């Protein structure tokens, strides 16, 4: 996308960057986001590598556009997103976008995400990966997760496990998220339906390398998500 096509940022946008042991990619990802004019909330979920040191350095380097919140112990993706939403709301954000710190997301995809929210055309925007581009195992896993999300949350979307989601502040306030871990992605899909929020799905490009493939939703994570849903369903 060239400079002419970049939609203007007319609202207070914060990126919720969940980070767990991402010393290799954190600096590059944050720099990419700040250069594009976004404010970044680094939510370090109890990293044991050098991520907190790098995060502190980035806070100083890009002040006042980067903030660092650290979980003293690892909670999980859901916990990081919840902390991120609270942090963004405390900064009077108009729009907040969840983003992964492992380098698998392309920051240029953000240009598709905030315009529908700024224009009031949507409450939530989710960027869906193109399943055709995925490695076979990953494609199968994500398709299964879409159906599991449909069964437990009652909503079929193109990519239920996408980490790239944008919310308006009022939509974020309405979300009641219980899952502390990976189940949060499907839970968000369910909450969008339960709270009658307007969802727009946009396409995204994903950068796959060995590292991001190892870190994503694998079979064990998938089984854990199913177990979490069963547990939550039984408790209702």
């Amino acid at each position, binding site marked *: 996308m060239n400079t002419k096509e970049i939609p203007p940022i007319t609202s207070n946008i914060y990126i919720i960057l969940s980070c767990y042991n991402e010393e290799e990619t954190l600096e590059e990802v944050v720099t990419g986001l700040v250069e594009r004019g976004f404010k970044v909330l680094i939510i370090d979920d109890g990293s044991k590598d050098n991520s907190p040191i790098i995060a502190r350095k980035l*806070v100083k380097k890009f*002040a006042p556009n980067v903030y660092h919140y650290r*979980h*003293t*112990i690892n909670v999980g993706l859901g*916990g990081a997103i919840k*902390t991120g939403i*609270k942090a963004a709301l405390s900064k009077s954000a108009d729009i907040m976008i969840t983003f992964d710190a492992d380098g698998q997301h392309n920051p240029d995809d953000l240009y598709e995400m905030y315009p529908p929210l700024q224009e009031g055309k949507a409450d939530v925007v989710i960027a869906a990966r193109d399943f055709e581009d995925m490695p076979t195992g990953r494609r199968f896993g994500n398709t299964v997760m879409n159906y599991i999300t449909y069964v437990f949350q009652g909503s079929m979307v193109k990519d239920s496990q996408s980490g790239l989601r944008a919310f308006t502040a009022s939509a974020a306030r309405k979300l009641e998220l219980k899952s*502390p871990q990976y189940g949060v992605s499907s839970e968000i899909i369910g909450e969008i339906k339960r709270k009658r929020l307007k969802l727009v799905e946009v396409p995204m490009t994903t950068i796959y390398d060995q590292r991001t493939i190892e870190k994503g939703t694998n079979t064990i994570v998938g089984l854990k998500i199913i177990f979490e849903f069963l*547990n939550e369903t039984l408790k209702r």
Partner: protein
Amino acid sequence: MLTYQIIVLIISILGIALGIHRYRNDSFSTLVFSLWTLAWIAIIIITFFPNITTVFALRFGLGRGLDAVYIFSILLLFYIVFKLYNLIEQQKKRINELVSELALKNHED
């Protein structure tokens, strides 16, 4: 007195002693301490008067007395495991909330 009765009696007395110790330490609530003590007393009674179980078994239609003890024990254990699981989940939730609150309070900007 038969050997197994002596062994069960010693274990039960140790169990009750442990319960008293925990209760004094505040590790056991009054409810848990009472249930714990009652369970050990029941074990002692059943060991010395095994025929009691037959009365229960006949009332519930379970045949032999020992079968009734096994079935009730398994059910009780299931219940305890379920309770423990829920307690751990609740604690996990509370810890997660605490971690989040601390992060929000002590952030760097």
